[in-house]
């Protein structure tokens, strides 16, 4: 029975030779991806009907407008893949940039120590990592509900962001710090280059690395992971630390883009972050999805806002239209899923 059972172990790739095979393979890839099909429909539609959408400048803008959301969403997605949630990223972004700005600026706005920007950039990221590790400790170490821990952290950090400068906005940051916001390569801002590079590398790492595998395992069945010697505490803490670090990085890039730090920055982005994560195919219950999907979700949501700006919807109808478009987009995604399920396509997370 040996040869027979071996043949059965890996399902043949539907005779991938010939034109029909390629169509089938491409079809399968599209159907299996949580977000590609909708992008494949939406983006050409936008390009065709929305003036200026498909211009180089607009695409550069779109990427820039996506950068911060992408960083926060990737972090949030990692936490969600482990079956947890990280609501604190907006707070981390806000607090770290505000605190760093206070350290860099001269008195009276700043602390007066005028710390070097070159030191402050990694310090901002480190603050994010520290906040993330605290989240991880509370969530997996002490077993506090992640929703409420990170919500409390969000409130605390947003509150704390106002304290150093007494809610004063800090303008015109040191030029080394905001260099990344003023310079570009072929019209593409360094903000885009940094954030997309980090996130794409992270996406690969998540799928290819041993830790990435453990992240999925903890999200799929935390008891099974533990029973197999994977430390949920270690894994979850790593994930929160990464999420915090990405938010710290986003804090820098956002402040550099605005060339200022404000206790309001990031306000309300939390909802968009979670919309991007879920549209991107990360399951709330953990264990499924990829950062590629999240990238798609980010592009979709940024495109919606971009298009609404370009067609200049009446401000009174703006929120209504945005909400309705999101619901429609998600409905399309579900239709895609149904189709894939009907065809029996479903890939393991790893």
């Amino acid at each position, binding site marked *: *029975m*040996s040869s027979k*059972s*071996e043949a*059965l*172990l*890996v*399902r043949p790739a539907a005779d991938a030779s010939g034109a029909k095979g390629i169509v089938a393979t491409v079809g399968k890839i599209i159907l299996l991806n949580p977000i590609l099909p909708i992008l494949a429909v939406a983006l050409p539609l936008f390009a065709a009907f929305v003036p200026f959408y498909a211009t180089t400048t607009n695409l550069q803008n779109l990427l820039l407008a996506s950068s911060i959301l992408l960083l926060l969403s990737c972090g949030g997605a990692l936490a969600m893949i482990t079956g947890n949630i990280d609501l604190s990223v907006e707070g981390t972004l806000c607090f770290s940039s505000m605190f760093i700005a206070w350290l860099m600026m001269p008195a009276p706005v700043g602390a007066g120590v005028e710390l070097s920007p070159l030191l402050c950039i990694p310090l901002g990221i480190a603050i994010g990592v520290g906040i993330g590790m605290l989240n991880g400790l509370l969530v997996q170490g002490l077993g506090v509900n992640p929703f409420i821990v990170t919500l409390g952290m969000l409130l605390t950090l947003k509150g704390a962001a106002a304290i150093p400068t007494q809610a004063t906005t800090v303008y015109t940051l040191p030029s080394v710090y905001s260099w990344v916001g003023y310079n570009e390569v072929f019209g593409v801002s360094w903000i885009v280059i940094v954030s997309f590079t980090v996130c794409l590398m992270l996406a690969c*790492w998540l799928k*290819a*690395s*041993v*830790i*990435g*595998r*453990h992240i*999925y*395992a903890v*999200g*799929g*069945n935390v*008891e*099974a*992971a*533990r*029973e*197999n*010697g*994977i*430390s949920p505490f270690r894994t979850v803490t790593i994930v929160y630390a990464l999420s915090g670090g990405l938010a710290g990085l986003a804090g820098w890039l956002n402040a550099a883009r605005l060339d200022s730090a404000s206790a309001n920055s990031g306000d309300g982005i939390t909802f968009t972050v979670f919309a991007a994560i879920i549209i991107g195919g990360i399951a709330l219950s953990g*264990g*499924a999805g990829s950062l590629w999907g999240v990238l798609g979700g980010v592009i979709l949501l940024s495109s919606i806002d971009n298009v609404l700006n370009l067609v200049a919807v009446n401000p009174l109808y703006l929120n209504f239209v945005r909400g309705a478009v999101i619901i429609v987009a998600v409905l399309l995604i579900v239709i895609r899923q149904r189709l894939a399920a009907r065809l029996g396509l*479903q*890939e*393991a*997370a*790893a």
Partner: protein
Amino acid sequence: MTPFLEVRNVSKSFGGIAALKGISFELAAGEAVALMGGNGAGKSTLVSLLSGLLRPDIGSICIEGADRVLSDPQQSREAGIETVFQNLALCPNLNAPGNLFLGRELYRGFGPFKILDRKAMEKVTVATLQDLGVNVPDMRAPTNRFSGGQRQALAFARAVRGKSKLLILDEPTAALGVEESANVVKTVQRLRKERNIAVLLITHNLEEMRSIADKAVVLRRGHHVGSVLLKETSDDEIVARITGSFGAKAGVAA
């Protein structure tokens, strides 16, 4: 010679429920012991203690003569114990190689940059499942698509791949077919012969008990109600001990 495993006067309660009450027994290196008992007798609870999932309320566990605090499964594994849990401990979102190598991935690189060696893991998976004669239609499908027996076979395959000195099997063939069960029994027998591995087997199947174990430890409602050499004991006696009718009306069972 000190025994490989010594369980000394171990008790474990869940709130008001005493699952184990002062259990003691020994298991020599290379020995195969069957842990028998009715449902809820405390067998799986004992497994949890030995594999580091739970800590005893009182009592201690010695491995190779040394007192060990097994406070997580990793420590138990490092002490040379490999377990097939009754709940199987599979991640439903991972595929067969993912589960077979769960927590034991093959990789290249170091630190946070250990990169999975997928090819190698898939190759081993094919070979391992084939050895057990288990027929999995698509190795790359997530295991929540597997049938009950396919899942159990996977969990068993994972445990026997290790280099452990004691293999704990909690009802390893409950969901397996006739042929697959036979393969499991054969595999365990082979491991004992080849690697002189010790086995702690939990089963409700007396035939399986006899083909693997030399000795039986019987639990009943958390109490240790007897250790017997299987050669010297009839099935009826064991059943009578399990059901509590031994002594009362000896020899009458099932």
